């Protein structure tokens, strides 16, 4: 157990932030297309149980994660049918999806509460893993952690460097203009919603298969809501989402290290527990305080239904 304190904190921070990064980046893409899906918590919960059950029966954590993605997509498509095809209110549908998903996961998960899964082994990256201090923290992680970094690169590139990303953002700004140019607004919004669902499902799968390899009802414990909040406070910028998630994880882990160290602190632990939320919000508000940029980054049609033939 002789790890350097810094390494230990960094390692735990990355693990704690990974589900937030994955889910928030997925939600970011959905919202950039103008669709506000508040159901992340529910999609994570269903993704978590689908992944857990599949991993348990098949013996493969990877199949489990695919199942988690599939479950997230299925739930997000349900949301899509309601809001994109039938024009239901997105906020209400999203909230309903969150509640439904949490309930459904508990129902499906009943028989799995007593099951334990083997831990997914870490995948050290040769050479890099041997770097002093940061090596063990950054490069001896589980594969999904590396995937979350790749996802960040992919989403950043897609949104700001690719033509498809430009179209997606255009939809979020002005669906009628995009429609007039000839883009299939509803179809693209479905895709964006499904991507958000897939990432929420994968985030849930990370929790139940990699993070705490077990299933218990309510294990998502609000992380879906935190991911949603990160997207808003990061003003829809991938890098800030990343910063926010790591900051949140970092402050949460650091306050635990402070508590566990036995240092004399005259701060109520309730305040320490609230610290990650406060710090994340404060920092994100400060780095994104330019009102012009906020208006530029937030998708103008967010949450508004669009009917192409109207």
């Amino acid at each position: 157990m002789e790890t350097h304190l810094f390494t230990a904190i960094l390692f735990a921070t990355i693990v704690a932030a990974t589900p937030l990064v994955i889910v928030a980046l997925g939600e970011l893409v959905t919202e950039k297309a103008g669709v506000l899906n508040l159901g992340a918590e529910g999609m994570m919960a269903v993704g978590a149980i689908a992944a857990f059950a599949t991993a348990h029966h098949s013996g493969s954590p990877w199949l489990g994660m695919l199942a988690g993605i599939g479950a997230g997509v299925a739930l997000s498509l349900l949301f899509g049918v309601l809001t994109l095809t039938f024009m239901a209110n997105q906020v209400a549908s999203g909230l309903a999806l969150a509640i439904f998903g949490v309930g459904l996961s508990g129902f499906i998960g009943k028989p799995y509460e007593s099951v334990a899964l083997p831990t997914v082994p870490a995948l050290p990256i040769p050479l890099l893993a041997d770097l002093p201090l940061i090596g063990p923290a950054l490069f001896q992680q589980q594969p999904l952690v590396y995937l979350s970094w790749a996802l960040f690169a992919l989403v950043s590139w897609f949104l700001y460097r690719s033509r498809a990303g430009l179209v997606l953002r255009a939809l979020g700004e002005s669906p009628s203009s995009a429609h007039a140019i000839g883009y299939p607004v509803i179809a693209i919004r479905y895709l964006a919603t499904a991507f958000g669902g897939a990432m929420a499902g994968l985030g849930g799968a990370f929790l139940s298969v990699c993070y705490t390899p077990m299933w218990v009802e309510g294990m998502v414990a609000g992380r879906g809501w935190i991911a949603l909040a990160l997207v808003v406070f990061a003003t829809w910028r991938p890098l800030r989402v990343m910063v926010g998630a790591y900051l949140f994880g970092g402050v949460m882990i650091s306050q635990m290290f402070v508590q566990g160290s036995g240092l004399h602190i005259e701060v109520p632990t309730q305040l320490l527990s609230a610290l990650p939320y406060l710090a994340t919000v404060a920092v994100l508000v400060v780095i994104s305080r330019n009102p012009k940029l906020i208006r530029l980054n937030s998708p103008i049609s967010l949450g508004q239904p669009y009917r192409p033939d109207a």
Partner: protein
Amino acid sequence: MQHGKKTLLAILAAGLVSALPATAAEPAKIGFVYVSPIGDAGWTYQHNLGRLQMEKALAGKVATKYVENVPEGADAERVVRDLARDGYKVVFATSFGYMNPTLKVAKQFPGTVFEHATGYKQDKNVGVYNARFYEGRYLNGVIAGKMTKSHIAGYVAAFPIPEVLQGINAFAQGMRSVDPKAELRVIWTNSWYDPGKEREAAMTLISQGADMVTHHTDSTAVVQAAQERGVYAFGYHSDMSKYGPKAQLTATTHLWGDFYTRVVGEVLAGTWKPTNVWGGFKDGMIALAPLNPAVPKDVRDLVGKLEGELKAGTRHPFAGPVVDQDGKTRVAAGQSISDADLARMDYYVQGVASKLPKK
């Protein structure tokens, strides 16, 4: 539509009322209200084991029913009232937050017996019960003190309330009684139930040198984390060896079956009186899970001997002198702590390395 709904309600209500006068030959209906899903380990799981044991012991005389996942507050009042109205003879409300709703309903149903777990308010038809979990914690601490190599133990705790502090302090007292160098470090999660956070807290403690961890939270995450990192753990509520076969040395488990059987038996016999039961090893309300084979013979013998002393009442985890962190004597030598002082414990004893934030 609105009218139809009302008629339907009236019919339902009439049905409930007509169901009230149950004949003597029918088994007595006994209701349980659970705060969480039963699951496979934890607080509610243990209460459900107790229900099943009581049902078996009084087979033919009782019919039990439970309502799980009932939030504390308004929902609890509705569920408790529904049970009382449905003619349930005894209602066990198994969570602290059910206290006021239960008392309120009890006033309206004087013919029904209510038993409330972990509360402190009684009434003519309301009894309260709880277990001295700290006795088990003390023995956990003794085992930890005997087996630790780093002299550091870690404790993942939910909220700084007396019941949790009793556990922490008893663990520290037990550990220090055999290892004067030992220190206990505490991390508060401020949540009864968040497996991810509990796991992080355990991992933090382990990477800070703890080679013994335990928890006062509701999931099995701490035991699992210990298993993963190759250190030892003590389960709580339930035997969690399934989640950490190598890690769990033992667990402090709750046993409610005997108590439930006794209460229902008394109600059936007409001898029940409202009581305030706070039982420990002696009353069979807590027990240690089977010790891990890794626990050496001399430690087993010591634990067996101490458990016997706790049962006999010749040993108390908080027998004086109990000195708190600031060096203040809380219980003088030769004395034992009173139940009232236990119930309002708000300090750490010596040996707890973390500081309790001042109020």
